[in-house]
């Protein structure tokens, strides 16, 4: 058991700002990065809204945490799955979302896309290979 790397998936199904779950789930992801496990993030249902570009919270008085997603690459989060059916249902495309990247140190720090657009069936397959799913 000790030393074995686990596959951890953080499942995000809620929109940002209407509730705190999106932000407090990100806090877990950031702290969790220090544990060097095999981490994936999954965005489905209203969770896909978390990644929308152009969030401006000033008039609402709430803290804008959207820039944190852009930093995930620095925390070695390289696998971010977005469920296509959830995007389609909401009339969104990847163009509406932040472009998230990570830098591959094994390839001269080349920039790679973190986001993978997957179908529900594909994401179910990914989920079935995980050891632990966090839900918020």
């Amino acid at each position, binding site marked *: 058991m000790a030393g074995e790397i*686990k596959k951890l998936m953080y499942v995000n199904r809620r929109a940002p700002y209407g509730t*705190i779950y999106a932000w*407090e789930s990100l806090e877990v992801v950031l702290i*969790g990065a*220090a*544990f060097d496990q095999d981490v994936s993030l999954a965005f489905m249902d209203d969770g896909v809204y978390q990644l929308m570009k152009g969030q401006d919270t000033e008039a609402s008085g709430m803290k804008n945490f959207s820039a944190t997603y852009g930093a995930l690459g620095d925390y070695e989060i390289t696998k971010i799955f977005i469920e296509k059916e959830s995007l389609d249902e909401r009339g969104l495309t990847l163009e509406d979302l932040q472009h998230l990247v990570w830098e591959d140190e094994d390839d001269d720090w080349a920039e790679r896309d973190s986001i993978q657009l997957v179908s529900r069936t594909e994401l179910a397959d990914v989920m079935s290979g995980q050891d632990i*799913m*966090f839900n918020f």
Partner: protein
Amino acid sequence: MKLTIQVNEGPYQHQASDSAYNFAKAALDKGHEIFRIFFYHDGVNNGTRLTTPPQDDRNVVNRWSELSKEHDLDLVICVAAAQRRGIVDDGEAERNGKDATNIADGFRISGLGQLIEGAVESDRLVVFGD
């Protein structure tokens, strides 16, 4: 089986804390090990000793404290979530200049790393929430 349980909601408002408690008890009765119970989001409110529920209703906070004592459980309240919601122990009171503490018996306040550690060290993570 070694279990970590995550509780995302506070007492009474949602059934999550009840379901988690009943699940934890059943697991212990079957001889399984509970590595940690981690209280996050409004779940931190399970750890205030200041509740006064009606006499004819279950006492959610006290029964967590009793279960913790009976089975030597590790009930952890997330520090960041606790700071937002005002669950305070001596250390937090001193650090943040608060004039009172309210943490219930059997709980301790600690970092989010305790949740990840629980997941990594356990066979299963079971999440109860809204």
